């Protein structure tokens, strides 16, 4: 036993040194020119494109428009006020509604009373924020609506006296019964803004998408509430805010003239494009991986000189015979969306879209290349149009791919 313990004592440091032996692996510097991996490029410039038009819908825009600008006419804007528990105050014997104000907001410090639109009311559903277009209102008339006249203007400044915003305030006390009408099970509190004179006025207001309530179109209900507390009676004078739950500017693009060598994008005109990039499963060597793939579109900065956000989305349905002169009620093309949808801001006459993900999957055979839908981001100014060159010139659209192959 003594011998065994002494042996273990002898072995311990040896075993320890072996087990903690510091494995090291210094890389050898060598010439790897015979490596199978190489970097290559592929340029595709025979890209074709075609415009098509979809009746514009500005339901998600952060502004409400009215009037005429850049050749586009917005005859009417709609606002729908939400159902709310405050409407039941009209039947509460302890509450006395003093007044109702319909308010919208503008950032125009020069707004004049005579440049403001009239407000109209209808107790029926008049529009769908997401789908209604000018095609639905070709025969629109406000004759059946209640005319609430023009608003009062209230300019708001900060404590230093700098301009903040202007409130357009309509007194709508006369609508009290209509707004709280419980006999109407389908009551929809629809309001419309329209210029009643034929002046080419133009006004831009905040829509409900612009802020989180602060500058949304709204109705403010001023009321007094009687509170019995023991022997005493307290009258509380206060207000409640009821926000809009939908608004929409109806925009009429009119006639659009298109050139075959350019493609245009415009939210206001409903202008969209289809792009065909001839990349197939065989365009790249099998097993290649794309490091970068940039679709480069050039535009005329003299026409579009502000930043414009462009969206490219691969098409998911079979191609159809596209009629560029026809205005589609809905977009005839379904798009794939995430993760292949990409967007970018234009800059210095170029729109560079990174299409690496979709191009890699096309080359892998995972996705069929049915073309791409090029659209304007819904947040873009609807009165701006961007025109891309797609002709034979050196500034026409091209796809530049850098890939690694084995």
């Amino acid at each position, binding site marked *: 036993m003594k011998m065994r313990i002494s042996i273990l004592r002898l*072995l311990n440091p040896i075993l320890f040194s*072996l087990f903690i032996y510091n494995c090291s692996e210094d890389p050898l510097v060598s010439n790897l020119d015979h*490596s199978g*991996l190489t970097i290559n490029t592929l340029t595709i410039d025979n890209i074709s494109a075609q415009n098509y038009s979809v009746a514009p819908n500005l339901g998600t825009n952060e502004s409400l428009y009215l009037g005429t600008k850049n050749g586009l006419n917005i005859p009417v804007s709609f606002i729908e006020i939400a159902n709310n528990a405050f409407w039941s105050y009209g039947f509460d014997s302890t509450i006395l509604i003093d007044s109702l104000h319909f308010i919208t907001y503008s950032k125009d410090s020069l707004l004049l009373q005579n440049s403001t639109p009239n407000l109209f009311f209808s107790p029926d559903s008049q529009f769908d924020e997401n789908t209604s277009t000018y095609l639905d209102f070709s025969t629109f008339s406000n004759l059946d609506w209640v005319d609430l006249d023009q608003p009062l203007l209230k300019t708001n400044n900060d404590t230093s006296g700098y301009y903040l915003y202007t409130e357009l305030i309509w007194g709508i006390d006369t609508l009290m019964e209509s707004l709280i009408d419980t006999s109407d099970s389908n009551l929809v509190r629809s309001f419309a803004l329209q210029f009643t004179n034929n002046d080419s006025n133009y006004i831009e207001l905040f829509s409900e998408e612009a802020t989180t309530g602060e500058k949304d179109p709204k109705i403010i209900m001023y009321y007094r509430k009687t509170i019995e507390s023991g022997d005493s009676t307290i009258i509380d004078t206060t207000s409640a805010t009821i926000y809009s739950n939908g608004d929409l500017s109806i925009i009429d693009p009119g006639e659009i003239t298109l050139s075959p060598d350019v493609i245009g994008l415009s939210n206001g005109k409903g202008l969209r494009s289809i792009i065909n990039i001839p990349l197939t499963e065989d365009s790249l060597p099998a097993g290649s991986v794309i490091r970068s793939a940039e679709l480069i579109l050039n535009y005329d900065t003299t026409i579009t000189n502000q930043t414009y956000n462009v969206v490219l989305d691969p098409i998911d349905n079979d191609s159809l015979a596209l009629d560029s002169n026809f205005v589609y009620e809905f977009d005839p093309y379904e798009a794939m969306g995430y993760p292949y949808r990409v967007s970018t801001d234009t800059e210095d006459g170029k729109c560079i879209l990174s299409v690496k993900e979709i191009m890699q999957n096309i080359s892998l055979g995972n996705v069929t290349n049915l073309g791409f839908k090029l659209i304007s981001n819904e947040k873009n100014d609807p009165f701006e149009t961007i025109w891309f060159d797609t002709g034979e010139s050196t500034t026409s659209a091209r796809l530049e791919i850098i890939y690694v192959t084995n």
Partner: protein
Amino acid sequence: MNAFGIGHFYHYQGLNNAMDGITELTPSFQSDVSLSNPSTWHNLKFAYLSLAYSGNENSEKTSSLSNGYSSLSNAIWVVPIKSRSSIGFSLSPYLDQRINLIDQDTLSFEAYDSTYAYARSFDRSGGILSFKVSTSYKFNDRLSLGINYNVLFGSSRQNESISFGGNPVVQSSRIKYNGITNDVYIGLSLLKDLRFYAKYTFSMKPLEAAIEKKHLFDDVNGNGYHDYIPPYYDFPFPDSINASPELRVSNLHDPTGFKLGVHKFLMDRTAFSMEVGRMKDNANNENPFLQFPMPNWINSTNSLKVSLLHYPGNFSLRFIDKLNFKGGVTYYEHLLKFDDEITELGFSIGVGFKFKPIGNQIDLSYYFGNREYSNISGKEFIQQIQIGISLADLWFVKRRQK
């Protein structure tokens, strides 16, 4: 060759195990037993379980390259059967495939009005193991025979990458190996103190490989694996690609050769032994994928080993008589397939300590080698330290109840 990062065969890297020292055929573990030579196993009095662990360092002086690692170098279990035959099983590494190369220059290429700098690298890990089933039979006091049935198996994983624009694009591959080689051993005692040994090696199934090349990927998260650990997803998404069909390549390693050994007692417990051998690899190795990064391999090897051995006394109680000393010199001459040549001169010393009457033994050995390459000016130095422990016991013997 590991200092240069291109892997090596373990049987050309120092000692096979600490118990046998520099030699393979001639007895060194005991006066009549070599654990590497099955034709001597029937001389064991007990069954042995023997393990050897080694630490290796290969260095290249002129370029300060140094590669080191430690691993199990041999595990063997031998059961003698009635002093006439034996059976044994062993597991040991056969081929180390660790490779780590980087490009000597940062290169550049131009694309779309931009200049990109890029660098390439290559690393491979893994290797091949050898599982041996061995047996021996003693025909008479002069002649004995041993056979190894040697199953080669294992896998390696390699990454070839090209880095530019921030992160590397990686080509991962996995190679699975299998093959069978056999060794036939003969032990011959012509005189009392003079024994001859021979070994003949041949391939029953030359080594073959199944190569699975994965799709190239952009290693965005830089961990060398094609994965999707958020927030950085490798590109393309791993689920979106398929590996190439498995490619089978045969005849990668097809060794044939012989070795002769002579063992002569100089004194009662001191012996001299010498082994000469020649091994040839008949492999085709034509697949360019496996030739990368070096399209050359060992085609034939001539070896010479000389050893001086001092065995422990069987019954002495003196400490010094329980020690086993072995020292030796080895010389290799490797001819590569395409002209180049590698020579190696190595020295080893080892000491073993025998304890308990049944012959348990602890061995410690050190090897220093010096390799020279015909096409490279620098020398490679190999250092190896091994420790082995061998435990003896009676197996498969019905013991009387106490």
